[in-house]
């Protein structure tokens, strides 16, 4: 076990030497890179990273440039998780055999994937990695859409959002189903740690990433990643959208220990109405027509119910 990096406050955090480089090709205002920086800067340990095909991958490793200052691998759309699990197995094997080149290092194994590669096409691969309990962390950069390919719906796209394959139209309000609860599904693999994080709550993020990197076994993290391009808001407003997502409780921040013990890690002082969160995004614009306003009410009811459920689970300590 390596020493946990001391990060008391933001000034101290800002002394971190970034291992993710600028001149990547992500959109101006993209939250992916904010999340990646917070994750990478949470540790001083060596890293073995993977990215599944998606925005992060295609924008950070296009020949002849890489934006990664740590070991990094991309194979395909569905298997970033398994790539890292293979690397972690090799690390164990070479450690047993005494063949590690730098045996004093304590590498952390982390895979990133978008919601498309995580909720959809790579779901089984992640499940396999979690079930086998590799000493690794899987992080979803959840922007609720296939952003890299231009905004098609994924099983993370929420109800009422207009996506290119579930567009809003004269007789449709867009996506008809609500997103699935990945944190709960992955926690059900009885892994030691799973959590939901947001880039605006950097301290909560760092704490969870550090905790996750220092438990033995598989860790699942779902990170909300407001997408300026597909959520349709001004690039400068990325952190405002992140604030709305956590403070409206659309993305509540919590952690689940050992698959059952749930802790809420952020309780907004002023809970923002869901309507404000929806109104800030072009993908929900059509919901403000008279005929669809009932959906906004349903949204609020659903978010309230989920918040009540999380609180009950937390209280129950089961």
């Amino acid at each position, binding site marked *: 076990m390596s020493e946990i990096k001391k990060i008391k406050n933001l000034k101290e955090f800002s*002394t971190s*030497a970034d291992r993710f480089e*600028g001149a990547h090709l992500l959109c101006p205002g993209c939250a992916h*890179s904010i999340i990646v920086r917070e994750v990478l800067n949470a540790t001083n340990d060596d890293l073995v990273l993977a990215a599944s095909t998606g925005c992060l991958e295609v924008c950070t490793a296009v020949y*002849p*440039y890489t934006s*990664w200052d740590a070991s990094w691998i991309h194979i395909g759309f569905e298997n970033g998780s398994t790539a890292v699990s293979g690397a972690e197995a090799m690390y164990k094997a070479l450690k047993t055999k005494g063949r590690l080149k730098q045996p004093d290092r304590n590498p952390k194994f982390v895979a990133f994937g978008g919601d498309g590669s995580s909720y959809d096409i790579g779901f089984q691969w992640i499940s396999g990695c979690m079930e086998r309990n590799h000493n690794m962390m899987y992080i979803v950069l959840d922007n609720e859409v296939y952003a890299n390919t231009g905004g098609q719906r994924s099983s993370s796209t929420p109800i009422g959002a207009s996506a290119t394959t579930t567009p809003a139209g004269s007789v449709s309000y867009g996506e008809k189903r609500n997103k699935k609860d990945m944190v709960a599904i992955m926690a059900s693999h009885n892994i030691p740690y799973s959590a939901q994080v947001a880039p605006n709550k*950097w301290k909560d993020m760092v704490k969870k990433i550090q905790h996750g990197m220092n438990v033995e076994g598989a860790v699942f993290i779902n990170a909300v990643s407001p997408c300026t391009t597909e959520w349709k808001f001004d690039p*400068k407003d*990325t952190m405002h959208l992140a604030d709305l997502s956590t403070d409206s409780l659309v993305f509540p921040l919590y952690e689940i220990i050992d698959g059952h013990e749930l802790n809420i890690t952020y309780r907004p002082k002023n809970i923002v109405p869901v309507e404000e969160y929806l109104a800030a995004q072009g993908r929900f614009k059509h919901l403000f027509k008279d005929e669809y306003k009932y959906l906004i009410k349903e949204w609020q009811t659903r978010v309230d119910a989920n918040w009540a459920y999380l609180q009950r689970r937390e209280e129950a300590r089961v």
Partner: protein
Amino acid sequence: MSKQQGWDEFEIGAMLRSFDGKIDECPAFTPQRDRNYSQNSSHVASVADWRLIKPVYNKDYCIDCQFCWVYCPDVSIISRDKKMIGIDMDHCKGCGVCVEVCPTNPKSLLMFPEQADEETEIASWPTKDEKEE
């Protein structure tokens, strides 16, 4: 990387190196300015031509809170020893997030057209009274 190499001129595999030669310690301990980046690191590339508007930094109002550093998507806020010292204009895409998260009044970062003259803009920086709210 200006040269478009032929098939026999690069290393085998679909791979790139971050640094030239061996690095003695984990890069987490080496500030970016002290690293020996390879020509294949995007660190040596520029996306300045993406920018239509640019942030201008006025150190007079800055409280070194580091919000701009932590929330910059393009690793473009240069902080040293807990102090904000400037913007990496090769990597900044002009998204404006730094300005939005800046808590001072008036803000110590503001967006201006790419062609604007920095000294002129700082000279005519808004005062607290001019700010709304």
